[in-house]
């Protein structure tokens, strides 16, 4: 199977760009329908900006138990697992911290608004913590400790990419790569030489942007960066990766981290945690055996666990 035998579709979703690649070009229309359904289910479950989403209802329940759909239960489970595996560095209870920074509406509106004033004043402080989010799978119920609010943005997109790729591979019987805002999952029989991915700061960057091109055949590849989804509030630049210990945007020694893992969810969990962990991320990723590429603000690059040498031009600072 070669590149010429692939079908591709690109569209906007979740305030970002989605790309579908399938090794059965004739099935790209069907692939889009499958993916649209999965993404609609995820949006209905976990959108922070839809008042009718399950997540909004959970946040508004004031500590009460709410019935959750199978999709929302899985999304919560994925978020709790990410928190557990990172020692709380990827925490789903950052909603109040993000809202306090002005990220209380769709990001396109924030960009359009320019200097968006936050609704909350003063420092929010450490987030309530993932242990304040509870899920009872046997009763299909979720609840929050009073005062805690959930945002699944750190994991839901990656979970959705995994689900989309698996659905496509199973239902269409082909190889598939699904990218949601640069977080990508591959499933099924891949292309002969693998899927070719440009790794850079911004998923919307042109093909020639500083970075590196690599191939993957399965699993996931995700990139987290402090240079994208940043905005100005109260006269200072902030970004969306929250350090749960402070409730503030992470002050990292890395501007961009890309990680390859067994799934997009795991890759995204590790790349986000690496930004939060800063210098300790190198040893952590190496101990886990996760191939990763970490870029400092000055453009110098570090790699771990078999990530290929970067022979291209250096990163722009």
């Amino acid at each position, binding site marked *: 199977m070669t*590149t010429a035998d*692939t079908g*591709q579709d690109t569209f906007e979703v979740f305030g970002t760009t989605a*790309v579908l690649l399938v090794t059965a070009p004739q099935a790209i229309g069907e692939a889009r329908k499958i993916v649209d359904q999965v993404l609609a289910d995820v949006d209905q479950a976990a959108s922070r900006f839809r008042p009718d989403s399950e997540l909004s209802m959970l946040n508004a329940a004031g500590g009460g138990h709410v019935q959750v759909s199978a999709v929302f239960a*899985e999304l*919560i489970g*994925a978020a709790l*697992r990410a928190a557990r*595996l990172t020692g709380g560095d990827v925490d789903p209870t950052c909603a109040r911290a993000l809202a306090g920074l002005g990220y209380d509406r769709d990001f396109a509106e924030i960009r359009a608004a320019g200097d968006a004033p936050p609704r909350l004043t003063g420092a929010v402080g450490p987030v309530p913590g993932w242990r304040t989010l509870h*899920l*009872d*799978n046997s009763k299909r119920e979720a609840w929050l400790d009073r005062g805690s609010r959930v945002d699944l943005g750190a994991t839901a*997109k990656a*979970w959705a990419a*995994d*689900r989309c790729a698996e659905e496509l591979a199973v239902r269409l019987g082909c190889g598939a*790569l699904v*990218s*949601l*805002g*640069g977080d*990508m999952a591959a499933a099924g029989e891949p292309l002969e030489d*693998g*899927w*070719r*991915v*440009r*790794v*850079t*700061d*911004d*998923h*919307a*960057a042109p*093909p020639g*942007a500083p*970075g590196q*091109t*690599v*191939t*993957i*055949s*399965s*699993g996931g*590849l995700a*990139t*987290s960066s402090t240079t*994208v*989804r940043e905005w100005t509030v109260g006269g200072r630049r902030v970004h969306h990766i929250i350090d749960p210990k402070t409730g503030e945007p992470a002050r990292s020694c890395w501007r*961009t981290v*890309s990680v390859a*893992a067994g*799934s997009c969810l*795991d890759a995204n969990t590790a790349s986000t945690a690496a930004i939060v962990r800063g210098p300790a991320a190198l040893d952590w990723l190496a101990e*886990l055996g996760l*191939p990763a590429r970490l870029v400092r603000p000055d453009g110098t690059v570090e790699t771990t666990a078999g*990530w*290929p*040498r970067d*022979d291209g031009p250096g990163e722009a600072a």
Partner: protein
Amino acid sequence: MKRARQSAGVCVNLERVSSGCSGRNGMLRAGRAARCPAVDHPTSAPGKKDDVMPQRDARIAVGERNSGMSKIGRTTRWTAVGGLVLSGLVAGVFHNAAASAPRVAHGKSEQSTIVVPSSPPASTSSPSQVTSGGS
């Protein structure tokens, strides 16, 4: 000599008490008498022979002892019941904690560690199909 006589006197007294009790009590008394330590009896005056415990006092002492044993038995039983209840509660709490832990059935979500890829990315000079970056 005085020490030996006094010690023997206490033992004799115990033997006499046991003679007015049931066989089980008698055995206990006999056992206790056999282990009787050779110490001065605090109530014994030098050169004075110990008095025999009156039958009525002996019955009271045996009754008190039986009552004490009964109390100990009751306390033991209640402690055992309390232990069972407490262990049941602990088991219940841990069961609930286990039930509320995520049990996600889809994809790799059940893995208890971050899963490494089957192979690391490989370098290529061919043009890319898609871009991974922040969003």
